């Protein structure tokens, strides 16, 4: 992907002004870091940080007015329940859930969050790199009177994450306005406009994701930085976003998830409701459950302080190759090498020792429980 072909988010000029190092990511020019990945990571763990997530795709799925007249009120929910793995019926209006869009083989096209913003009105927030593919897949599988609108180009978004989110939220929206509950989304007035605030994130810290019209992006971004200044806010890039999510073992699409992997192998069966009578990929997942897994995604931690693990490093046990690393880094919170790898399911036991091959040399690691980093609750 060439930089010339990359699109700019509505916050591009702000990133450049702040001295961000810009990189091409999923077809967009995005900040990888401003001052440094470690400092930005720590700002989110200790205070608060703000990320541009305008590159993410945003779809609205709704029942068409004609379907509602003809008695098909549930069209949008019914159809989404066919397309996605989690159960839409469990969502009250104003709530969101993590879910998967699968192909016929049970492989992951995308992982996303779906919010029920009206009875038959849904907001889907999808990965930037998969936006076009998702849309094509959804349109290909239209069978009921449902309308799907890709609003990605006209909308932007930010994630504001960290333990001081409450203070910043009240500074931005007013001291009497309540933070939406975990996984909820609410439309809130901001100046002369309205923004959608969801209590979600990808960092393991308390936080919100805010979606707004692209024309309001700069105003909101700068307001958050201004009000967040006394709280120690930092603008954070993709680098910190990656280390934060990996410490929590949140998967990254394209690295830990792919059309060749299914949610059960990825250890994310919790977000698949096999009790639903039908959804795309269900048959394959049922068979996977029945026959057992071939490979499984496991978190691991290096035994010694040494070189950090990286994607594509080979994994061994007793000299036998058993898998490959999909995500790896030096965890800034632990100051230690951590990662995730797909390995033979037979070896995927918590506490088991594995070897990661780094530049021809093997380094010992231990299979861990999720998450790799747990905040002390003192």
């Amino acid at each position, binding site marked *: 992907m060439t930089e010339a072909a990359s699109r700019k988010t509505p916050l591009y000029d702000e990133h450049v002004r702040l001295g961000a190092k810009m990189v091409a990511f999923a077809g967009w020019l995005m900040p990888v870091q401003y001052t*440094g*990945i470690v400092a930005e990571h720590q700002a989110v763990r200790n205070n608060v940080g703000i990320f541009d997530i305008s590159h993410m795709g945003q779809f609205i799925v709704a029942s068409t007015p004609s379907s509602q007249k003809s008695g098909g009120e549930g069209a949008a929910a019914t159809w989404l329940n066919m397309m996605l793995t989690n159960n839409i019926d469990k969502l009250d209006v104003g709530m969101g859930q993590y879910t998967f869009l699968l192909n016929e083989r049970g492989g992951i096209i995308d992982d996303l969050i779906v919010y029920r913003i009206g009875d038959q009105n849904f907001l889907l927030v999808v990965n930037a790199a998969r936006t076009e593919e998702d849309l094509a897949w959804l349109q290909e599988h239209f069978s009921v009177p449902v309308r799907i609108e890709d609003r990605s180009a006209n909308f932007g978004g930010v994630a504001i994450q960290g333990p001081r989110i409450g203070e910043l939220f009240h500074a931005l929206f007013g001291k009497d306005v309540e933070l939406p509950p975990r996984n909820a989304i609410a439309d809130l007035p901001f100046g002369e406009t309205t923004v959608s605030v969801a209590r979600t994130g990808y960092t393991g810290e308390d936080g919100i994701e805010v979606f707004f019209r692209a024309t309001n992006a700069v105003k909101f971004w700068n307001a958050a930085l201004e009000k967040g200044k006394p709280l120690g806010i930092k603008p954070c890039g993709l680098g910190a976003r*990656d280390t934060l999510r990996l410490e929590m073992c949140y998967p990254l699409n394209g690295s830990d998830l792919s059309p060749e992997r299914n949610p059960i192998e990825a250890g994310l069966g919790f977000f698949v409701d096999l009790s639903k009578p039908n959804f795309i990929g269900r048959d394959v997942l049922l068979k996977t459950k029945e026959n057992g897994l071939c490979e499984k995604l496991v978190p691991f931690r290096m035994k010694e302080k*040494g*070189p*950090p693990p990286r994607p594509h490093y080979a994994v061994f046990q007793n000299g036998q190759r058993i898998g490959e690393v999909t995500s790896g*880094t030096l965890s800034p919170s632990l100051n230690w090498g951590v990662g995730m790898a797909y390995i033979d399911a037979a070896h995927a036991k918590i506490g088991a020792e594995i070897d990661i091959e780094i*530049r021809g040399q093997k380094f010992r690691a231990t299979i861990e429980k999720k998450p790799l980093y747990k905040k002390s609750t003192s």
Partner: protein
Amino acid sequence: MNIPDDLFYTETHEWIKREGENVRVGITDHAQSELTDVVYVELPKMDRHANAKEAVAVVESVKAASDIYAPVKGTVVEVNKALEADPGLINREPYGQGWIFVLKIDNVDELKQLKDSEAYRKQIG
């Protein structure tokens, strides 16, 4: 960007300081800023002989691992052990305490192929 005039440079962003029959080698201020926070350094083996442009060390940031090359043919006679405990020295003092290794040069003439500060400044634009 700091590019001292009394050093030589390579296309691969190493700096070279002549010390008699030896050269001291590190990575430039520009390189450390591009790499971001250095979290691990794999030092060259002592007494290793390397050709010019041969990878001898690895500098790892949070994001990626990058090879460091021998600027000229020579033998490793000193390595900066301090980087094992504090790899961030490369970010904080790229031209000082952040040096990586010292090579005993095989052929002093090879130094003529290195860039001066002006040429390096031009390279990174």
